[in-house]
């Protein structure tokens, strides 16, 4: 028995990474970022606003949270729908009370199905980012380039029309991309993406259709990972987020502004048994440090401004 010879050949084994979207850059060695008012932490809250179709395809894979029992999985469908009917409004009340705005990463299908929900997001001047068509349409390596381009452009058009916003941000459903996604997203007029989880800070990506800013949307301490995937309690979520906050806040003193990304899902965090814990967490973060609340569009713009500044 042996393996094919290409298993012992390493065509991309050289200095740097094995792709060309950005160069390797240790986070500690970059020029210091300075947030407005000298804040140490940019607090960036992202709320995924999703539609999980009842006829969820099993291929190429089911996103975390997608319906996965026998068709028709009414139980899970309704649970996800709860987020758009009830949960998101609880999250909005908490953020309104604290004077915070979020980035809503919206599936285009939600804009078509629930114009009222989009109106409430727009009324609050939240930043709307496009998150594909719906959770049944993941972007992946098996997708033909034309088909993927159509998905990107359709989602962009629907969300720009529905919101009246420029919709500068893109978040692929389930953080999934093909080799073409970044270029297609840049080509459709987006300026920032939030799919890669390799950094504490914004950084620039290059594509054949122009540059993009990658924002460090958390997956590791998202409610989806801690509360859904690992089935822990709101106290465990809050404690891990506070750990991250303390670590990043401490590092900011020596290394420049840091980003605390929160990802809170209406159908997970919006339940009555969790929302008060989430509100207390936000109060601690806003009260205990030096925080600049920013949306994704604001964070990306501030990053670009500082990159362009002569040094």
């Amino acid at each position, binding site marked *: *028995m*042996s*393996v*094919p010879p*290409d*298993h*012992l*050949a*390493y065509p*991309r*084994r*050289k*200095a*740097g*990474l*094995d*792709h060309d979207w950005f160069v*390797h*850059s*240790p*986070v*500690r060695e970059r020029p210091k970022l300075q947030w407005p008012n000298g804040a140490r932490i940019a607090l960036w809250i992202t709320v995924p606003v999703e539609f999980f179709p009842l006829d969820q395809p099993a291929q*190429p*894979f089911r996103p975390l949270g997608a319906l996965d029992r026998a068709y028709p999985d009414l139980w899970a469908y309704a649970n996800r729908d709860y987020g758009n009917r009830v949960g998101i409004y609880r999250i909005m009340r908490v953020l309104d009370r604290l004077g915070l705005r979020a980035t809503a990463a919206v599936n285009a299908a939600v804009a078509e199905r629930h114009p009222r929900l989009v109106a409430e997001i727009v009324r609050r001047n939240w930043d709307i980012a496009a998150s594909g068509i719906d959770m049944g349409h993941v972007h*992946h*390596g*098996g997708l033909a380039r034309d088909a993927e381009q159509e998905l990107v452009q359709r989602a962009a058009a629907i969300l720009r029309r529905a919101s009246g916003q420029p919709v500068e941000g893109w978040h*692929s459903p*389930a*953080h*999934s*991309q*093909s*080799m073409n996604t970044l270029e297609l997203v840049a080509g459709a007029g987006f300026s920032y993406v939030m*799919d*890669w*989880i*390799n*950094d*504490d800070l914004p950084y620039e990506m290059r594509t054949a259709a122009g540059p993009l800013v990658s924002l460090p949307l958390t*997956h*590791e*301490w998202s409610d989806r*990972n*801690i509360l859904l*995937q*690992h*089935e*822990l309690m709101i106290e*465990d979520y809050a*404690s*891990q*987020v506070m*750990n*991250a906050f*303390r*670590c*990043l806040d401490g*590092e900011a003193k020596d290394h420049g502004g840091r980003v605390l990304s929160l990802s809170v899902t209406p159908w997970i965090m919006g339940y009555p048994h969790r929302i008060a814990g989430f509100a207390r967490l936000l109060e601690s973060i806003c009260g205990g440090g030096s925080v600049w609340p920013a949306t994704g569009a604001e964070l990306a713009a501030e990053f670009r401004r500082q990159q362009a500044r002569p040094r």
Partner: protein
Amino acid sequence: MLKDPGRYAYLPLIERPKITWPGGARVAVWVAPNIEFYELQPPGPFWPRTVPDILNYSHRDYGNRAGVWRVMEVMQRFGVRGSVSLNAGLCDHIPAIIDACVGLGWELFSHGIYNTRLIYGMDEDQVRAMIRDSVDTIRRKSGQEVRGFLAPAISSTETFLDLLPELGIRYTLDMVFDDQPMPVRVRQGRLVSVPYSFELNDIRAMGARGFPPERYAAMAKAAFDQLYEEGAETGMVLCLPIHPFIIGEPHRIAALDEVLRHVTSREAVWLATAGEIADWYLAHHYDAAVAFAAEREGQR
């Protein structure tokens, strides 16, 4: 297929030669940062999702951009050296990390070329070529002679252990059958199994199972306390396998601080590297263990 790997003798905890550590230490503690390179588009199956698996690839990249520097800082705070489970390809891709490891006096051992190249199905010449490549690459970059091996992603073949001594390797971490070093039966030469950890590995405890960092720290401290107590009778080993993309995340790094603070607060602890443990065992205990095992098997 084999029913039993046939690599080690049955030496129950209650009946085996006593192990003593330098300075009369009860426990040898070693920390194994797995510093890895994962390919975006590997030639064989690896990623849980379709390629490119951006979520999982970029998570691992976090370790090399951000996490590894935090891990180094915490270990340095407590004077703990790492024994690095190193994908040798990283010497080519991100040599600055290797320079930093060498600067800290850390030991490097081979974890193959890439974690995305599993060894399942390789013939012996292919395994030899891959390990020799990794050993040569690490020597060229760091000046270190590689003494240890852990197969990439803990993949395996029936015979790869036989090939390690001929490539200059003295210790393996591929089996977690004991809390003490043990001789490993190989075709020729001598090979020691240095204890690694299964449940205490951060990628299992906090990655796969999602335990909160506080619970992970409590587990690791409990393991240390138990081994420290048992170490009054015979020397034990505690290994903490860690991954910069897991424990080096900002919501988890305090757990490493907590564990190392605890471990370094006790007197009778040998803060060792895996190679030092293997060398000590080879020099003082290996022959006795082999003779003891032969005698027991003869009596059966």
